[in-house]
Structure formats: structure tokens, C-alpha cells
């Protein structure tokens, strides 16, 4: 049998709250330490204990990070999904299953490795047998695939930093799994793992922690938050790093953290901090943004710097709280009642989560308008390989704040909302300064900030706000372009689709197409996006949602002659994107277009 190295998908079916997450992360880390390109996706339920959870690991020398089209190796521990998981397998798949689960193995067209996982685990410690069961299957897999023991032990040490007894126990359990496979089976399957040379050392980190660090380096001064999946770990990341990175010698912090009573209050606190001259932020998900809409409109209209991170989950309503989607695009871009338009930063990698984490504060203070970071559950909560974070390449930009009396007095005329420089961005003074004290308001106001219902005041204000945001377009992160010389098909996509795009691209090019890519990284759209569309015969806008929200924005903003060149491929079922689904849909859309 010809062996298959580093090109397969492992699916591990367990129950939530049984400790499988740490076992799975040890396995992932062990592959990673062997230099094997690997990605892991945790499909977990909205539940603390007992409901089904799957961990999908993709090994790919091509660097593909999507879950792939099929499972090659299935680990069955959870009786609840046993039959379903088993039925879904293609003939020839490997099944490692818990013999003690009292479940049936009714497939004779698969390669079956029954292992008494629970019994082996009980041997070590009957009290924690459930937890140990998980590490046993890691041992079995290690033996079956040929995972290096050094890599495995290093992964265990990383997972249980400094907890010697846990490390010892896990290494013993791994040994039992390994030995059981060695003693009872002859390898019957083609799957192996081969070490690869590590050219650049990397570490695993999730997008939320990366964004949290970015915010810390962006000088965040106030975090107000309300817990919500999948954004809580972003806020908690900031909280965890403050004692290390943002305290003075006595341990006093330079960033306030307030757990708010709800998302409305969190948003209010962000505005309060921005109004007072501080860098305030919150982290939430779609339902939280829904609740914050009123304040978002106030921040836009009264021009208050404020940063909101949205880690997108599946909507509408409570939706699928632990699944991923790109469906908050429109809500962020045009948030709140009335005519509005907001700046949205859309990272596609953990490095960009960090970068946009600090950049968001500079942008919000520069433009005196709310700035959103749009991440999603896939990027935010799964771990991705990272070479390291790059230090900000510019000093903090605090925007047009007048702090000195001399500067203030040099103004010929001062008005909080007076467009002195012609860029739509006015100057502001801070509470406590005594300079130009005004009553900020969400009601109509004139350039001096005084209440006004005059038609020209309202019209001019709205026109200035529009020009201000419009002026931000080319100062925001530019799209990432990967272009073919033949400008046949262009794909515009965003965010975490970055992790699947290369596989989609390869699938499309396998049919003979020449495909260019344009990853949008900010709204309002950079002018390069329009140029990309103009250069290509046909453009597909690829998104993880139902309605094609980014496509809708393009339709609204593109010149008429380009609109017919742009087509939408939008699909979402809650799962992280699988390349085949999107490439098939792109192909059928192109077929329709060319008819």
C-alpha cells in the first residue's frame, strides 16, 4: 500500500466538557512541532457539558487550512453521534473507536481499530477516567501515524505548563495508547505523518488573543465588555495581559476594565471614554452590536472616537452561537438609524488581528468616528500559525485634539464641528480643558455644536460626515491582491476566507481557469477594489453568508458600467468554509454568466 503523508483530515467526535479540547490541542501542537502544516477547527456546541463536539484537523503540505471535503480518519468516542459520524464516512476511511462505549461497529468497508479507551484510562486513575480516555486516543493516533515522541512530549508540556503531575499522567496515558496499538494491530491504513523542515519558526495563537495584544499595544485605556461567545476571549485576553504589559512599578494599571451590565452600557462606556479623550473599546458579537446601534449612531453624529470589535457568529437572533459566519458586514457598515456609514477593519489572519487591534485606535481618533474590527468565530477562536507580531510602524495618532491654549487661541474661529482643513475632520477640545466647552449632543447641531434645526445646518453636517468617511477610503488598509496576468476571473473575498481561498483557487485553476484574488481589508472600500474589478472580465464576490452583503455594498457604490461584471457567491451553513462547496458554486455561477 502506498502511504499518504501529511494530506488528510482527522475528525474527533467527543462530548463537550470531557477534556477532549486539551487532548486535541496536544495532538495539533505535536504535528506543528514536527513542522507539518496543520490547522484545527473546534466545532463546539452552545453548552458547557455533555453535547457533541468535533475537532477537525487538516494536515496539508499544500498549506490548506479548511476542513477539507471528507474525513479520512475518524475517532469515535461519543455514543450520541456515533451512528451519524460512522454513516458519513467514505469506504476505506480509518475508524479508531472506543470499544467500551457499548456501541456497534456496523461498517465492514472501513479500516477499524477498536480500542478499549475507557478501560485503559481506568487503569491509570478510575476517578478521572473520562478525561484520560481522550489522551488515550492521541496515543493511538501517535502510534498509527508515526508521531515523534519528542514532539508529543513537548506538546504535553506546553499544554500543562509547569503542572508536573498532569504532564506525567498524560505521558503515561499516551504510552498506553501507543502500546495498545503496537500490541494489537498491524497497520492497515496508508496514513502517515512525515516531519518537515521548519523554515521559519511559528507559534499557534487564536485571533482573539492576537487582537487583544494588538489593543494592548494600541494603548487601550478603557475596556468595557459584556460576555458573549465568541468574543469573550478577546476581552479576557486584554484582561490577562494588563498585569504583564500595562502596569506601573506598583502594579497599577493604565487601562480600566469594566464588565458592564449589558452591551448597551458597554457601548455607552466606550463613548464616554472617547468623549473624555481616552481610547475606549468593547468586544462583542452580532447580538451585542444589535443592542449597541443607538450609541453607534450617536458616536457617528456627535463624532466620538470609539472602537468596537465584532467577532461574528451565526445570526440572525441567537442563531448558532458557536458557529462561524460573515453576516454582520452590512450592520456594521450602516449601523444605527438614519444615514450612516462606518469604518470597518477586517483582518484575515492573526497577524492582522494584532495590527488592526492597534490601528483601530489611531483611525478612530484620526477620523473621530466609530471604528469596527470585524473578525469571526473561525478566525477568533481557532488557533492559527503565526511567525510573530510586528511592532507598530508609527507613533500613536491622537488626531486633531487641541490641548494647548496657544494653539486654541491661534484659531481664527473655533467650532467643534467646523471643517477648518477641508477634509471634513474638525478639531476638538477635551472636557476639563476649559477650551470651547460645549454640550455634546445627538440632536442636530451647527458647526459650533449648538442645537440647530436649520435646513442648511443639517444638510451641511450630513454632507461633511459623508465626505469625512469617504476621505478615509484610501488611508485604510488596502486590499491584498494576487493577480494572474490573464485577468479572467477575479475573486473578491474578506476576513477568515483567507484560510480557504488558496484551496478554492487551486480547484478552480484545475479546470483551466485563471483566477486572481482581492482580499478586502476595510470598509469603505479602497479605490483599488474598483480598479481590480475594472481589470477583470468577471468578478465573483465570495462571502460566508446567505445574502451577499459585501456584494450589496459593491452594487451600491460601483459605477454603473461595472455592476454587471460583478456576481455574488454567498453560502453559509454554519460550518467553517469548505473549499469544494465554494468552488462548485463559483463554477456554476460562471457558467450561468457565460451562457
Amino acid at each position: 500500500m502506498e502511504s499518504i503523508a501529511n494530506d488528510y483530515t482527522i475528525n474527533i467526535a467527543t462530548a463537550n466538557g470531557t477534556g477532549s479540547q486539551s487532548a486535541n490541542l496536544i495532538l495539533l501542537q505535536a504535528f506543528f512541532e514536527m513542522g507539518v502544516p496543520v490547522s484545527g477547527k473546534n466545532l463546539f456546541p452552545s453548552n458547557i457539558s455533555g453535547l457533541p463536539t468535533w475537532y477537525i484537523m487538516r494536515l496539508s503540505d499544500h498549506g490548506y487550512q479548511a476542513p477539507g471535503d471528507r474525513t479520512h480518519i475518524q475517532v469515535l468516542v461519543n455514543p450520541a453521534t456515533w451512528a451519524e459520524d460512522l454513516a458519513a464516512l467514505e469506504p476505506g476511511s480509518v475508524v479508531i473507536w472506543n470499544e467500551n462505549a457499548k456501541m456497534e461497529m456496523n461498517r465492514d468497508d472501513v479500516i477499524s481499530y477498536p480500542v478499549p479507551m475507557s478501560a485503559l484510562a481506568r487503569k491509570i486513575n478510575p476517578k478521572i477516567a473520562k478525561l484520560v480516555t481522550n489522551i488515550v486516543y492521541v496515543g493511538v493516533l501517535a502510534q498509527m501515524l508515526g508521531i515523534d515522541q519528542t514532539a508529543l512530549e513537548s506538546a504535553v508540556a506546553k499544554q500543562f505548563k509547569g503542572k508536573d503531575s498532569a504532564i506525567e499522567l498524560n505521558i503515561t496515558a499516551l504510552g498506553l495508547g501507543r502500546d495498545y496499538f503496537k500490541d494489537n494491530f498491524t497497520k492497515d491504513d496508508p496514513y502517515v505523518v512525515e516531519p518537515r523542515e521548519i523554515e521559519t519558526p511559528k507559534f499557534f495563537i487564536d485571533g482573539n488573543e492576537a487582537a487583544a495584544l494588538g489593543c494592548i499595544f494600541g494603548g487601550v485605556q478603557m475596556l468595557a465588555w459584556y460576555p458573549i461567545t465568541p468574543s469573550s476571549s478577546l476581552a479576557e485576553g486584554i484582561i490577562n495581559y494588563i498585569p504583564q504589559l500595562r502596569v506601573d512599578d506598583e502594579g497599577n494599571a493604565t487601562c480600566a476594565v469594566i464588565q458592564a451590565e449589558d452591551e448597551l452600557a458597554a457601548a455607552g462606556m466606550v463613548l464616554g471614554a472617547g468623549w473624555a479623550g481616552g481610547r475606549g473599546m468593547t468586544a462583542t458579537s452580532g447580538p451585542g452590536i444589535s443592542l449597541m446601534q443607538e450609541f453607534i449612531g450617536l458616536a457617528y453624529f456627535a463624532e466620538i472616537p470609539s472602537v468596537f470589535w465584532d467577532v461574528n457568529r451565526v445570526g440572525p437572533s441567537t442563531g448558532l452561537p458557536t458557529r462561524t459566519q460573515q453576516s454582520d458586514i452590512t450592520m456594521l457598515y450602516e449601523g444605527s438609524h438614519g444615514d450612516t456609514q462606518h469604518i470597518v477593519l477586517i483582518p484575515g489572519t492573526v497577524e492582522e488581528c494584532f495590527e488592526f487591534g492597534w490601528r483601530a485606535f489611531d483611525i478612530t481618533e484620526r477620523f473621530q468616528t466609530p471604528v469596527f474590527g470585524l473578525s469571526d468565530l473561525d478566525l477568533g477562536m481557532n488557533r492559527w500559525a503565526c511567525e510573530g507580531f510586528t511592532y507598530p510602524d508609527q507613533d500613536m495618532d491622537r488626531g486633531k485634539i487641541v490641548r494647548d491654549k496657544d494653539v486654541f487661541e491661534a484659531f481664527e474661529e473655533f467650532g467643534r464641528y467646523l471643517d477648518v482643513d477641508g477634509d471634513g475632520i474638525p478639531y476638538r477640545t477635551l472636557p476639563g480643558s476649559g477650551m470651547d466647552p460645549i454640550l455634546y449632543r445627538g440632536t442636530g447641531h451647527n458647526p459650533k455644536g449648538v442645537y440647530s434645526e436649520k435646513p442648511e445646518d443639517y444638510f451641511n453636517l450630513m454632507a461633511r460626515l459623508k465626505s469625512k468617511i469617504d476621505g478615509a477610503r484610501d488611508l485604510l488598509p488596502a486590499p491584498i491582491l494576487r493577480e494572474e496576468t490573464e485577468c479572467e476571473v477575479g475573486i473578491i473575498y474578506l476576513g477568515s476566507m483567507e484560510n480557504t481561498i488558496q484551496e478554492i483557487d487551486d480547484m478552480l485553476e484545475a479546470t483551466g481557469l485563471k483566477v486572481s484574488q482581492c482580499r478586502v481589508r476595510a470598509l469603505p472600500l479602497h479605490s483599488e477594489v474598483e480598479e481590480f474589478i475594472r481589470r477583470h472580465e468577471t468578478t465573483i464576490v465570495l462571502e460566508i453568508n446567505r445574502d451577499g452583503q459585501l456584494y450589496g455594498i459593491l452594487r451600491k457604490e460601483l459605477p454603473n458600467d461595472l455592476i454587471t461584471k460583478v456576481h455574488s457567491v454567498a453560502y453559509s451553513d454554519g460550518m467553517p468554509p469548505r473549499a469544494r462547496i465554494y468552488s462548485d458554486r463559483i463554477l456554476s455561477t460562471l457558467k450561468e454568466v457565460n451562457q
Partner: protein
Amino acid sequence: MSDAPARPARTVKLNVINEPKDSYTGGKSSLCPGCGHDQISNVIIAAAWENGIEPHRIAKMSGIGCSSKTPAYYLGQSHGFNTVHGRMPSVTTGAYAVNKDLLYLGVSGDGDSASIGIGQLIHAIRRNMDMVYIVENNGVYGLTKGQYSATADVGSKKKKGKINTTQPIDLAALAINLGCTFVARSFSGSKKQLTSLLKAAMSHKGFALIDVISPCVTFNNNDESMRSYGYVKENEITLHMTDYIPHFNPVEEVEVPEGHFRDIELHDGSTIRLETISDEHDPSNAVAALTALHGAETDQKHVTGLLYFDNTKPALAEDLGLVDTPLINVPADSLRPSKAILDQLNAALLG
């Protein structure tokens, strides 16, 4: 130009920091003539001036409603924020987190505080947010033309409509139950009492709630209303006479009252003196305060004075564990860790 004799130059009275009262006034009110809220605005001006607070060190905060419009009518040299309905406490909390050195003066109404914003009010009290919070409480929604609010008294009848039978929310009782550290009730028509209570609230570190009955002359000032000028004057029970002695004016120099009195020292060294009228009220006794409120409600009366006071609880700033400098004045190099630190962090993550 004129044959009239030159008028002698009027000496302008200055406060302890040499500011004239004009430094504390605001724009012209657009509320209905006679509105209780305008009387409260005048008390705010007087209290801030007499307490010698630098106008620019005050932040005027409000929500939405008649009361929340008033920050335009006082303290024209102070920055302010007229936020959204019922959400002034959160905005104030965020501002306070980055600049704890301002005096946050919140003005709200009964719709803003007892209905849409009751959650934020409760949580600001729970955090002992360091601010003065005035509720201009008239029992009706004025700006939307006279609907009952959640504080309307049972048995009261506004100008148009039926007698209210829905149980009111007593914000003072609510605050006491939540452990609010300064709870007072007053009446917009009781200028002396309200002024001393407000000055004391400004000297307090922690959440100071003053629930002020402030009649709505347009929709709720008829004889059948329990929040009309006439009714409140007839049915007010004053717990004690209140007098405020500022920290810059030593207590020893103040005339000692003849009867029994109780001095309460405030955080900035000022004193509020409570002179007993008939039965002594002990403001450190929450049960006594609640009993007084309950009794007054049963008798369809309004009890006023300093209901409850507690100076033992830490204000929010202490819980936040921040550096002494207000965060907005912390230099950039303390906000952004150095490149060396990021390099170390990257190395540590690489393991």
C-alpha cells in the same frame, strides 16, 4: 452722551476662587415658564459657585427628556454630554474611567431614570460610581406631552387622564436598598434645602442621588396631582434642617444652633449639618430611612432631607486599580509597551 449721573461701579461678588457667578450660568432656558427644572438649574449654578469649583472641572451629563435638556442652561464653561435616553450613567462611567479628576454632575428625569434607564442607574449605584445624580422628578413625560411616568403616585391625577393606580417606583428607596452611599430627596421649591444637599453631594466621593420633586407646570400641576407645587408644599415632611459648611470655612466659625444637631463630615472636609426638627433622623440607619419613606407614602406625603449616607464604601476608582494620574494624562510610552517587550513576547510565544 447723557446727563444722567454716572452710576457707581457695582462690585461683582466673587467666590472663593475669585470667579463671579456669571462664570457658572448657561444659556436661556426653553422649558415652560415656571418649570421646577429651571429652579433646580439655578440651584446648580449657586451650589457650584458657592462651593468654588472651577467651572471647567465639571462635566455635565444627561440623558433625554425635559430634564436632560437643562445642562444647556447652566455651567456654560463646562463640557457636557447630552447622551441617549436612559444611558447617561454608562457614558459617565466611561468618561470617569479615563478621567477621574472631573466632577461628574448628572441630571436626569423620572422617565430617563425610573423606566428606560433604570438598569443603568442601578448598576452605577452598584459600582458606587463617583458622581452626583439629580433626578428631576415630576411623575410625567413632558416632552411627549404628559404621559404618566413610573414614579407617578397612586391616587394622583395629572391634568388630563385618569387617576394613576399603578404602583410607583420610589427611586430613593430603591437606591437605599442597593446600598447607595448618599441618598436625598428634596423639592425644587425648597431652595435652601436643595442647595445644601447638592453642595454636600458635590463633596461626596461615591454615588450621590438626589431625587428632587420638580413639578411639571404644563401637565401635572393641577390640584388633584400629588406632584403639584401646591400639594408638595402642603404635604412635605422635612426630616431635618440642612446646612452645608464648606471645607474652606471652618466649622468652629459657624454659629452653633440652639437645638440638637448632627454634623456629618464629607470626603473633601466639608460638613453637612442636620438640625433636628422633631424626631431625630439617623442617616446611617437604612431601615429608619426606608421606614420614613414608607410612612410618607402611606400617608400620601413627601419626605425630604438626607435620607441615607455611608462613607465607608470604596468609590469605583478604587476598584479599577488604576495609576494615580487620570488615564488621559498618562504619556504615550506608558500606554504602548516598547518594541523590546513585543520581541520578548514573540520569543516567549515561540517557546
